[in-house]
């Protein structure tokens, strides 16, 4: 029974840095947004309140007369009845109303709801309009004589309902109600018009006015409502404010999270050997530098960091950056001669038009390789070289590792015509990493340029992403194209490849060489039986695929030891290690200890002082004549550096260059080379 499957534990070699949590960024700016929206809304509301306090609008006749709120309202006291000041005392014509008025029970505003919406009818200049609250609308089709002018206020039935019963037919007011029973149409409240006074012109006019008013009300019973424009405007402004601040907040948050420092990365390969120096008296023994080093150059011995493998130092200052108290300083040493001479543009100092990128330049780490790939393409573009034939490319990229891929993406972005050739498969050296290996993206102070995806991930994730990029960008990748020579003539380059189908030639104006440093794995000198060709391996990606097999590992370097150990832990696998020497001479102490333990436990067998004479079908024959049965042979005896190939195309080491500053190789010179394009050598940035 299985409880669960353990995840592969991460190799914790760098301390996580505090990063803002999503929970923190999620609500970032909300308080500010609220404040902004509140202030905006408050200011607008205050402004609109000052314009029309409380939403009450002064009725049309009063507004036209230029009355202000304060004319009727006092700050300290409730609304005063101040109508009589302008209108004069207007006693009611009805006895009952007059009595109520005298006792103070009936005031002008009890019937005339000044801020109510019944308003009245205004007649004049040959037209009639129905007004209410603050607005007026014309009544069409009403024939108003030229001399008719006046205002007829309308009293709502509701006002009468305080004393009368509008529903009762016997109530006198029921005769005054309009068709909708919402207002009275008896306008003779204050002026009595009867036969006796009909002769006077004023009364005549009044009757005309009232008649027209009744007709106007019949046509337009509902007075225009209060001006809603303020409220509508307020709603609109509020909605806009809320929308604006919420959007702004989202934008602000997004911008901050994607903002990256746009420092120009330094792509110049190191010129001098740089080695860390440790002040043992101040060293804390915290192993920050040890964990920072991708190549295990440093180790902690008795709680003091020591330089154990100076030859592997890459010259980068990760360790120095991590040292908390400056006990470790990386200092310049002798000049590095073992690297191709390149200009700052990454153009070869020997062969103009040839650009170098990646590990080949002597600058390790995937991140640097990606940067260099992009920079090389940009320099090639800036040099202005153009193809001399219609079928020629702008660029040939040799090697499909991190640098080559990055160069291809940059070239595609710049619209160059190019082809990418690779002797093996995409990112071959990353493919040969152990299964599930965590590819460390050293969080250096190196910004990433170029478009190639890079994050701390497992080898499989990295490959998957890169394969997807090649497919989605339709990069012209020619795999299994092994570059046999690069010939330069005045018009450009011929890149010659051998392929499984034969040979291929590409004409290009410029070449980006991103073949890494590892070179070609060193092969066995012994004869190899054809049936065993598919059973000889130069790297071990997944030991589990060799379960239940008999394996032979040739070599005793770190790579060979790690492979042998991984195989020995696989169930049912028998492992024989063939070593030339008689004891462990080099390699990490950790590996040597594990090898000794594994040998003692009988997990593997080491044949000392042996060499392989031949690989026959199903067996390896040693120099002593011993036959070791083998279903898989791992040859891990180092690699041939790509120098002979580089020399063949005219690229020389910095050291050689100093001794004889010769000119370009003669144009048209042609040297067959043993090396083939291969991306990135020693695992860059892998820990």
């Amino acid at each position: 029974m299985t409880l669960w499957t353990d995840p592969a534990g991460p190799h914790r070699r760098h301390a996580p840095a505090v990063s803002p949590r999503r929970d923190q960024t999620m609500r970032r700016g909300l308080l500010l947004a609220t404040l902004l929206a509140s202030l905006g809304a408050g200011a607008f509301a205050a402004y609109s309140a000052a314009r029309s306090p409380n939403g009450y609008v002064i009725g049309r006749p009063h507004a036209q007369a230029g009355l202000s709120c304060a004319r009727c309202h006092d700050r300290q006291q409730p609304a005063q009845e101040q109508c009589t000041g302008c209108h004069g005392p207007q006693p009611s014509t009805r006895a009952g109303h007059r009595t109520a008025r005298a006792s103070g029970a009936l005031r002008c505003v009890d019937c005339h709801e000044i801020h109510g919406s019944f308003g009245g009818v205004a007649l004049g200049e040959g037209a009639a309009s129905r007004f209410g609250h603050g607005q007026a609308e014309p009544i069409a089709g009403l024939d108003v004589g030229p001399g008719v002018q006046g205002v007829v206020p309308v009293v709502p039935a509701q006002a009468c309902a305080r004393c009368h019963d509008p529903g009762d037919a016997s109530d006198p007011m029921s005769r005054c109600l309009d068709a909708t029973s919402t207002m009275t149409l008896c306008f003779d409240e204050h002026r009595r018009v009867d036969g006796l006074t009909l002769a006077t012109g004023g009364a005549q006019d009044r009757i005309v006015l009232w008649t027209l008013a009744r007709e106007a009300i019949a046509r337009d019973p509902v007075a225009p409502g209060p001006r809603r424009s303020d409220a509508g405007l307020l709603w609109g402004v509020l909605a806009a404010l809320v929308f604006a601040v919420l959007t702004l907040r989202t934008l602000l948050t997004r911008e901050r999270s994607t903002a990256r420092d746009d420092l120009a990365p330094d792509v110049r390969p190191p010129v001098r050997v740089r080695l860390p120096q440790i002040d043992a008296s101040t060293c804390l023994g915290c192993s920050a530098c040890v964990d920072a080093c991708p190549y295990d150059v440093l180790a902690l011995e008795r709680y003091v960091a020591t330089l154990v493998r100076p030859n592997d130092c890459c010259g980068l200052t990760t360790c120095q950056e991590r040292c908390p108290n400056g006990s470790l300083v990386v200092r310049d040493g002798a000049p590095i001669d073992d690297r191709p001479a390149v200009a700052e543009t990454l153009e070869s100092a020997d062969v103009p038009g040839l650009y170098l990128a990646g590990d080949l330049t002597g600058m390790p780490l995937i991140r640097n390789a990606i940067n260099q790939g992009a920079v090389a393409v940009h320099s090639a573009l800036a040099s202005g070289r153009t193809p001399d034939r219609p079928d020629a490319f702008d660029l040939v990229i040799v090697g499909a590792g991190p640098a080559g891929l990055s160069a291809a993406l940059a070239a595609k972005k710049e619209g160059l015509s190019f082809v990418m050739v690779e002797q093996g498969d995409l990112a071959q050296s990353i493919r040969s990493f152990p299964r599930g290996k965590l590819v460390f993206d050293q969080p250096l102070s190196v910004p990433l340029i170029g478009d190639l995806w890079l994050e701390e991930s497992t080898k499989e994730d990295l490959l998957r992403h890169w394969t997807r990029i090649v497919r989605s960008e339709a990069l012209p990748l020619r795999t299994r194209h092994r570059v046999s020579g690069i010939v330069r003539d005045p018009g450009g380059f011929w890149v010659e490849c051998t392929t499984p189908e034969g040979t291929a030639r590409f004409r290009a104006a410029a070449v980006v060489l991103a073949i890494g440093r590892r070179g070609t794995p060193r092969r066995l000198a012994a004869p190899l039986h054809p049936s065993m060709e598919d059973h000889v391996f130069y790297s071990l990606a997944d030991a589990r695929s060799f379960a239940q097999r008999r394996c032979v590992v040739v070599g005793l370097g770190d790579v060979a030891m790690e492979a042998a150990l991984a195989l020995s832990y696989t169930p049912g696998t028998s492992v024989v290690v063939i070593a030339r020497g008689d004891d462990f001479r080099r390699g990490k102490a950790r590996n040597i200890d594990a090898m000794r333990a594994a040998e003692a436990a009988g997990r593997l067998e080491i044949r000392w002082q042996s060499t392989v004479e031949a690989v026959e079908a199903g067996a390896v024959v040693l120099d002593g004549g011993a036959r070791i049965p083998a279903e898989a042979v791992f040859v891990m005896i180092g690699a041939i550096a790509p120098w002979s190939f580089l020399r063949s195309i005219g690229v020389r080491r910095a050291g050689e260059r100093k001794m004889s500053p010769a000119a370009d190789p003669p144009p048209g010179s042609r040297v067959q080379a043993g090396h083939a394009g291969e991306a990135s050598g020693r695992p860059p940035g892998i820990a």
Partner: protein
Amino acid sequence: MNAFEAVPLRGLDEASRARIEAAGRVHRLAPKERLFALGDDADDLFVVLRGRVLLETEAGVLRIAEPGHTLGEEATLGLPRRAGARAQGEAEVFGVSASLLQRAWTRAGGRPAAAAERRRLERAVIADLLRARVPALDGWALDVLLDGATLQTAAAGSHLARAGDPAPAAALVLDGVVHVRPAGSREVERLLTGSDAAGVEAALEGRAWSHDLVAAGACQVAWIRAEALRGGLGPAAARLGDASRARCDARATVLAGMQVGPRPAPVDVHRLARARSLLVIDQDACVRCGQCTRACASNHDDGFARMRRAGPRLLARMGAPTAPASPWLLAQACQHCTAPACLPDCPTAAITRGPDGVVKIDPALCTGCGACAKACPWDAIEMGERRPGTPSPPPPASGAPYEHIAVKCDLCVGTRGGPACAQACPTEALQRVDAARDVVEAAALLGRTLPSVSARPRVWTWTGAVAIPIVLAAGAWGATRHGAGWTPGAGPGLWMGWVAAVALAGSMAYAAMRRLPTGRGPLGLALHGTLGATTLAGAWAHGGGRFVGQPGVFAGVVMLAVGLGLYGLIAYRLLPARLTRIEADAGDERARAPESADALMRAVGGRGEALKRLTAAVLLPYARRFGGGMRLVVSGRSLTQERARLHAQLEASLGPERIARMEGLGEVLATVVTARASRARGVLRALLRGWLAPHVVLSGVGFVLLVVHALTQGAR
């Protein structure tokens, strides 16, 4: 006497002396004053400077430490105090972190005397373990066993034994958790914890190990050689492993019951064993508001959050076996371990553990080297920029000032009311628990007894449910009375306006208080909801439900804000449990659809043709079905249940034999149900959280409008 003149501290190099001086402390003890008690947690090692110190147990005085002697060596093994220490007369003792002292000794070339002391302690510890397991173990047999025993301290993930290796000795787990896996595999078959035995038969019969033994976390194992087992125990030796086998089977049942999510996930028993103050979040109550993280950040001057709302989940009961099992998220935050992994790795002993068990980092000693952050298996320590004004160790003459500092949870020591995260949680979903004591399942796995505690009921869920309808009904009643002598400007209408205003101000105060480190009660959300409902009811009654003019706009804004809030309360009540059911794991906030497709390709890759065809024809359309996730939510099935249902359906249509033959089907099914639910997860999260931003903005606007409204109306 100067501490460095004492024999154990002589001959140290300058750097070590400076560090010991900075981290160490001189204890002046009055006669009979206690230095430490039996069973205390031990991190410090002591050197007697003056006077005498008695080491005693219940049995009596073990030894008398004189000036120059060391005491408390159990700290070097990470064990609790095995004896109490008391001053005889007046005494002066220099105490310093044992790990720092060991570093100093190693730098100076080792100290043989310490090794002898260590060996003595190891024997004593193994003897205790054996006595507990084998009754009536006499002195001679014990001696034989102890002579053949060695103690191994293994790092997390290291192999204690590999299948196929000869087994000359049996393993007794002293502390920590060990995974038993088949050869070369990562599948965990059994789980060994404290005092379990492994490999007894193999050792006695001279066989090889049949399984790999891997340390799940840092652990201590006693190896007892086969000869010693035979010699010391005789025929009884064979029975040594019986009890642990039974315990392993019981554990498997408990572990199966703790699984949340569609695929069996590792249960970090090691973490449960170590955690003294584990930050757990009940996923059925957690509304994913992130208030805990923000409160944490705002409660610390540097603004760094010490916790992250992500981590593994497990189904467990808190407090009592009768409590309902809930899915708990083990959030990423310092859990103040019983044997902290970070503590011995600190080169300057900046990490200390108080008598209350709180693990602290002293900024005045922290160099920001990151060793502790790397040592913590759960990423609870992170490195941050050191702010100006933070205490710092003096930089070396040549070096720059220390730029970084280790940041981790300090349990908000000094904050009234305890950790800010727990105080800030609006739904009381977040708790700090002692896993081995409070989690029923953890106690069962670790063989501890559980004190009977009853779980606290959550208040907010029912308070709001009762109060809100009542208040709203009151508002509706008020609104209907309008026109019958009820106006906003006077009488009860005006009073309702005042009620609404006061309630609005009150619920705004809740929002303001959320930004303070203290003063958040468990009643907060219920009170806030009730006040909000009161605002709504009051405003409604005050205005009579008419939205006219500027007061109408104001009423509309307030009612919209409050309405959103009331929706939120309902969403808080209903959605979290549904969301939890369809979450694959708590860390999947970042999961996107393409990632799921990736996961599916990975699950199918390398499997049989039949499975690939089935995936393409049936499972992929199933995963991509539009609205499938919401259908899952509505059905109420969890991803686990959905996976089982899918499996049953496939069996019914294809036949059980064909399904059984498909290798890797389980993983593919888990992936497709997760993918199917992915969009629904997003929708539920948006429903759960999306209302808050407009609620807050509109509430702020409403409050300002209230002020304007009150001023202008008051002016009338």
